[in-house]
Structures are given as C-alpha cells and as structure tokens.
C-alpha cells in the first residue's frame, strides 16, 4: 500500500502573514518511508549531536547509550538497540510522524506542519526538524545496535 502525503500548504495564509513551508514529498511504503527525504544518506555523527541536543528534545524524553550525558529522560523508551529493532525506513517514518502508529503517543511528529493547534507565531507552518536533520538522526539511530 502506498500513500502519498499531501503536502500543499502554501496557500494557507497564517495570522501573522507568514506562510506554511511546503514540506518535501515522501512516499510511505508499509510502515516506513524507504527513501531519504533529501535523496542522500544522513550523517550519523551530526545525528548523534542532534539526538543529544536538548533543544531537539530526543534526550529530553529518551535515554540511550550516551555515557557522557548525565541527564536523560525516562518518558520514552531507551534508544539502545534502536537500529536492531527498526529498519531505516521504519525509523524515518517514526521520526516524521509517530502519531501514525499510535494516536495517543506523546512523541511529536518531527516533520509535519498541519493539524496542529496554537503553534508559536515564529514556528507556525514549520516542521520541528528539517529533512537533512531527520536523515542525520535516522543515520545515527540505525547505528545503535546491541
């Protein structure tokens, strides 16, 4: 089964005059997104830095094999072995829109800009992460093997 995500948001004028960014298109195949959002593989080293950057929120909720990071969250599963549990295709869709798997999840959809309420004025219409950031994180998580 193949879904084509609807990505046209540019015509939606927002209250402060900014416009929603158009997201790059992607194809969902089964329970994943097999193709890179950027058309190129991500950089695992940059991905690791992003996962550990408190502002991107991974480490706020997740713990993982990061001995140098003292404060890790326990709101979400440990990322140890994530690369064994999921293929890069599955990891990519989980980052892009985890709510697709569980409506009740507290994991934000990192590459989505619709269906959100009261988004901060400066962030409206923007996804949390860029396609290249998603790819970097996917590349890093894929290396997490037990």
């Amino acid at each position, binding site marked *: 089964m193949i879904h084509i995500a609807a990505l046209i948001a540019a015509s939606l004028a927002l209250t402060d005059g900014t416009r929603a960014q158009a997201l790059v298109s992607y194809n969902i195949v089964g329970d994943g997104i097999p193709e890179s959002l950027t058309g190129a593989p991500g950089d695992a080293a940059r991905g690791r830095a992003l996962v550990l950057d408190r502002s991107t929120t991974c480490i706020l909720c997740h713990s993982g094999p990061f001995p140098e990071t003292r*404060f*890790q969250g326990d709101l979400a599963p440990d990322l140890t072995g994530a690369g064994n549990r999921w293929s890069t295709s599955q990891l990519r869709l989980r980052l892009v829109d985890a709510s697709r798997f569980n409506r009740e999840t*507290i994991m934000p*959809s990192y590459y989505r800009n619709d269906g959100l*309420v009261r988004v*901060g*004025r400066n962030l409206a219409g923007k996804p949390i992460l860029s396609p290249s950031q998603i790819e970097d994180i996917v590349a890093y998580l894929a290396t997490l093997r037990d």
Partner: protein
Amino acid sequence: MSVARTIIAAMLLVAAPALLAGEIPQDARHSGYSFMGPDTRAMQDDDTSNPGMLFVLDGEALWKTRSGSAGRACADCHGDARESMKGVAARYPAFDKALGRPVTLDQRINLCRANHQQATPLSHESRDLLALSAFVAHQSRGVAITAGDDPQLKPFVEQGRALFVQRQGQLNLACTNCHDDNYDKHLAGAPVTQGQPTGYPLYRLEWQTLGSLERRLRSCMSGVRAQAFDYGAPELVALELYLMARARGMPMESPAVRP
C-alpha cells in the same frame, strides 16, 4: 463487600465533586514540593530563608499604603489581612458577579484599585502586584483549596479542563500528557510534576524572582512551542481555575519555592 464499596463511593460523591475521567484522585495528589530536593525544600521551609518572603514583606507595607485618588489603603476597607484575607486565595479564581466571569487574585487586586482606590492598575508581574498577591496568598498558607466549588464557575472550569487536555504547539502536547499521565518520570533528569498550583505566587529559582501562575503557564506553553495566551486572557484564567479545582483539598503553600 461490594455493597459497602458502593456506599463509600456514593458518600464520596456527596462529599466532593466527582472526579473527571483521568483526573488524579485526592489521595494521590502531590505538590511540586514533594518532587524537589532537600535543599530547595529547606529554602521554602524556613521563612527567614525563603526569598518569596521578601515580597510578602513588601506586600504588607503596600497593604497599609494609601493609593489612588480615593486616598485609601487596602487596610482601610479590609482591616487586618491576617483575619480578613485568611483563606481568600484558596478560593481564587472566583466568580465576579458584575463581570459574569471568574477573576484571578491579581485581577481582583486591580479591580479593587480601580473601583475603590481610583488607582491605576498594576501591570502583570510587576513587583507591587506580586508583592500584594503574595501577601494576600500568604494568609491562606495551610488552607485547603476550594476554588471552583461555586456552581456559577462550572462552565469555566470545563473550559479550563478542555484547554488542559487539548494538544497544542509545534510539539503537539497537552498539559495532561505530562502532568496527569507522566508525573514521576523525568524530562532530561528533571522530575515531571503534577502541575499542582498550590504555591503561587512562587519564587522560582529559574526566574530568580517571584512569579504568577500565569507566568508559569505561559512558560509551559512556550515549552511545547505553542503561542502563549496573553496575561489576563480568559483562556489563561480558565486554565488557572481548572488547575486550582484539580488541586481541590490540597493546602496552600504561598509563597512556595520551586526549581
């Protein structure tokens, strides 16, 4: 056995408003105090080391200071706050008949200034407003919260609850996702609390000053990357009211100290 249980349940329904689905039961409600380390607790426990008490002191002075063109002080109408203000903050936000909606303690202070002192309103988070509200709230220390009991407030409590459970912001999280479903867990090492509003206005170490519950709520909204409601917005008042109603029965701690 099951009969006895039914009777107990029925008695509870009479004694206290029924819990809404997902709400934290009375005996499981914990103040942010219980999530803090011993050092921050010690700072709150001793009035001579609690920096919030500096504001209470200022508020006590302001209580007796004449203000506005009416030339009246709070004390001229309300007398000794230790008597007249005892338990008042535990009932706020309260329904204002003239306005037909709930008002916060800060809004009540400014209504008093406008209507009885002919004084200009104090701005949100200004030192004087925080000092006065801290002084008034301090008189309710140990008093159980009853805000929201007034039946006229029912639709506003419900509005607040709807906002509490609504996902919002770029992170698409509702208050309830963390503060009902995940308290006791950790956000990057910091405990997630139940978000009980028992100590406001409170001295937050992060702020290095006293702040209102509205400031805290706005800060939470920024945290989930939502557009924060303006100070005094009806939505923020409704949220504050719901939080107080959700903390029904918990003792007031103002001015509390929090990380």
